[in-house]
């Protein structure tokens, strides 16, 4: 008769302490990487550590990061929004059109934000109202929104934004802290609180982990999702204001391909692309890392497309490494 081996199972009588968990988290790994890149950059280029240079570097990521915060919530809830870059283009086109009609800065801001909200509402209605998969809907609206800017603009460009409008993308709040960077910090705090300290944030996690269970525990799933798509739309409108103000002109190809960079930022920040987990501090760190890498490469005269190879590799390897690591540990344990 064959002997039966019972493998002992260790069930810990308590979870690891807070400090140990924090130390092993994805965020602390990101923090180490960020510090290493910072160190590497300052060794590689003597111009990197200048406060004004660092301030310039923040423009690389602030606009994308604004959208990334809202995108993080959408992805945690198990959906995705690929239309954000096209919303930027449409909002920017609408603002450019308003300039031709003689509107001034406050009206332009209102127009940019409301176009973002309307686009977000369209996405939200199609996804929650008709129950369509968000990836297809937002691929469709991605074509639609940018297509509308192409219809309005063709191969032309809108310029002639009022001087006061340029403050959003080029102005400084205090010393080297630009308006965009200040906004980025403020939004990080707001989104961090909303996701980690409110009922709404808990609902977002619950929906991402098990939508049906969330529904049965009394969460208005459709409403929460609708609000999330409104938020990404609003953030895209806000980013559009900043970007248009910084560039001072609008072409229909503005922010082309940004949706991929925003998703990369969110995934690099440790948000599970399948939904259910992720944190805002992670996304903040990912934004800093991506911004510093692109800026550092820029100082070293590396062309933009080579940077994109690096971003692509980064995206795949940050997801692959934890999986490989887990497998290696399992193999060692046996």
């Amino acid at each position, binding site marked *: 008769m064959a002997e039966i081996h019972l493998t002992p199972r260790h069930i810990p009588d308590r979870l690891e302490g807070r400090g140990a968990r924090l130390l092993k988290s994805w965020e602390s790994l990101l923090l180490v990487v960020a510090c290493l890149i910072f160190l590497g950059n300052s060794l590689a280029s003597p111009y990197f550590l200048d406060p004004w240079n660092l301030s310039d570097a923040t423009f690389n990521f602030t606009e994308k990061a604004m959208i990334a915060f809202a995108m993080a919530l959408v992805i945690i809830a198990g959906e995705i929004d690929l239309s954000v870059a096209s919303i930027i283009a449409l909002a920017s086109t609408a603002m450019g059109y308003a300039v031709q009609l003689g509107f001034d800065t406050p009206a332009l801001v209102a127009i940019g934000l409301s176009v973002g909200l309307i686009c977000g509402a369209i996405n939200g209605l199609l996804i929650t109202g008709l129950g369509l998969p968000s990836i297809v809907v937002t691929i*469709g609206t991605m*074509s639609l929104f940018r297509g509308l800017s*192409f*219809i309005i603009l063709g191969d032309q460009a809108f310029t002639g934004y009022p001087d006061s409008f340029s403050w959003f993308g080029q102005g400084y709040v205090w010393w080297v802290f630009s308006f965009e960077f200040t906004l980025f910090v403020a939004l990080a705090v707001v989104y961090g609180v909303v996701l980690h300290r409110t009922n709404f944030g808990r609902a977002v996690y619950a929906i991402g982990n098990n939508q049906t269970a969330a529904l049965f525990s009394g969460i208005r799933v459709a409403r929460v999702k609708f609000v999330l798509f409104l938020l990404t739309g609003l953030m895209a409108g806000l980013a559009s204001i900043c970007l248009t103000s910084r560039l001072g002109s609008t072409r229909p190809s503005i922010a082309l391909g940004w949706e991929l960079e925003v*998703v990369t930022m969110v995934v690099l920040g440790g948000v599970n692309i399948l939904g259910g987990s992720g944190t805002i501090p992670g996304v903040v760190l990912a934004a800093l890392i991506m911004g510093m890498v692109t800026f550092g490469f820029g100082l070293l005269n590396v*062309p933009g497309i080579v940077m994109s190879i690096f971003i692509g590799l980064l995206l795949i390897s940050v997801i692959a490494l934890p999986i490989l690591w887990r497998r290696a540990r399992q193999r060692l344990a046996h």
Partner: protein
Amino acid sequence: MSKFLKNRELLLVAAIAVLLALITLRFPAFVAPSNLARVYNDTSILIILALGQMAVILTRCIDLSMAANLALSGMVAAMLNAAFPGLPIPLVILVAMALGTLLGMINGALVWKLDIPPIVVTLGTLTIYRGMIFLLSDGKWINAHQMSDAFKALPRDALLGFPVLSWLSLLMIGLVFLLMSRTALGRAFYAVGGNPHAAVYTGIDVGRTRFFAYCLSGALAGLSGYLWVSRYAVAYVDIAAGFELDIIAACVIGGISIAGGIGTVAGAVLGALFLGVIKNALPVINISPFAQMAISGMVIIIAVAVNARAERRKGRVILRKAEAV
């Protein structure tokens, strides 16, 4: 009648017919057989790509890197031809297809062996493949005068009155149709997408099936790479940029469910043709070509809404007899 409404392919044929009728009202010459053949030829590359994307989507995956794969394979084919003009063209095509397959295998292996979500994998390889074109070509263009005449002529050569490009796409439709309907692998694509857990219990390796789907989409992207570069007689970093969305659009319009397991070869072909007719009709009826993007966006949204209604089931009847009692 209700049966007709449920048949997506027939519905799509009707939609294309209505579209053609509307165009004919403004511009009768559009439906002349010679012009329709030209429209088909112009859509050939999209059809070939949609076939590959269909296999991937059937297995509940997605391939966003197809256009980048096309551009990289096309660039390598063009550089090969520029460096060795004497190389026989079938060999160049073979190299392009082999490279395309290799790039598809990378996608497939990452999905299969590492369990990374397909959208993330292909989002990453999309930027990597595009970047590699830049590294290879140093950002330079390969222009018409650098390509040999045979290289440029092949897709245009007439065979029985139609260009080789059209014949090639017909051949691919036939081959993929046979693969889907007559082979175990084709059945496995549907089984994996329909219910991955059930597929495992019937002895299908889900990861391996997905891997083969990516190989197929890669090979077809490689072939399209040669066809694209030789047809337009130019190769540079940004060829077919954003075309991955057109390919997915063709599939979605053709009734291929993004949730996997549902879709036919006929649907993919008709979806591509629908987009092709719109693209070719716009300049004819005096609508700015800039409107094309917005129109395909609208069409995608409408198509996915229509398809979702057809797919929504009331709950499955497992025991038909018990239900009847």
